[in-house]
């Protein structure tokens, strides 16, 4: 993230990280978890939204990893419980969840946009000094 903030705006940096993180997960979903094409697409969209949330938490806490880690652990824990309770999920449930996650990601980014810009500027200053 700090490397990308040097050459890109905060929005582009987060977009790039989200895509990289989504692609990194693709083999896990396709080969290990063997999800359907639809489920893969939903998970990919969810991972991109999730990384926007994690990046926002990272930036607003002055480049601290605790909040993104807590969010990620809570997310993974919730998902593993869902899989235990409902091993097969319907398409509409996944669509609803992904849409709500996207709404939260966009709202969070918009709400904290000034703090994110300030944190990006601080990050650039810190790396150059």
């Amino acid at each position, binding site marked *: 993230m*700090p*490397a*990308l903030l*040097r*050459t890109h705006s905060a929005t582009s940096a987060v977009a790039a990280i989200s895509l*990289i993180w989504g692609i*990194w997960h693709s*083999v*896990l979903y396709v*080969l*290990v978890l063997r999800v359907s094409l639809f489920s893969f697409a939903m998970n990919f969209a969810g991972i991109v939204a999730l990384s926007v949330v*994690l990046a926002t*938490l990272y930036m*607003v*806490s*002055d*480049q*601290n*990893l*605790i*909040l*993104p*880690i*807590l*969010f*990620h*652990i*809570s*997310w*993974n*824990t*919730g*998902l*593993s*419980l*869902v899989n*235990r*309770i*409902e091993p097969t*999920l*319907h398409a*509409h*449930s*996944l669509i*609803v*969840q992904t849409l*709500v*996650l996207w709404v*939260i990601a966009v709202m969070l980014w918009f709400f904290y946009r000034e703090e994110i810009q300030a944190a990006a500027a601080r990050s650039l200053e810190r*790396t*150059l*000094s």
Partner: protein
Amino acid sequence: MKVTDEVITNTTRRWDRAATTYCAITFLFSWSAWVLATKEPDAVLSIAILSLNVTVTRHHALALIGNLAPGIVTILMLLVTRKSLRPLLVQLRFPRCSKFLFLFSIAVPVALNFLLLVAEDGMRFEADKTYVVLFLNTFALNLFLGPLWEEFG
């Protein structure tokens, strides 16, 4: 240090190379582990550490190693390039932020997954207190697994 255009350009090039190398190694490491996890997935691995015997399937062990790769590669790259681990570890200090953000980080994922169950069961889903215990146990189990190492990366 006086920040000039030359300093910015040189530092950018150095970081771009480091970031690209990091991504390439992490992808190779994780994807190799995950591909290997699909071969003989039911084979069992027994690991003995002092008096503790842990038995896991090869599938689970390799899937987990693939998940940990972003953090492992980060630490290895810092060690190989003889850079300090301090900037990485300092990011794990207690954050100075509002209580709302702490609550948000824990409660929103729970609410979103609860929403998934409610959407799945057509509003007939009933929460059980055993789920709370199960959630806390799984949360504790996850503390040192994937998320920590992924966020390190």
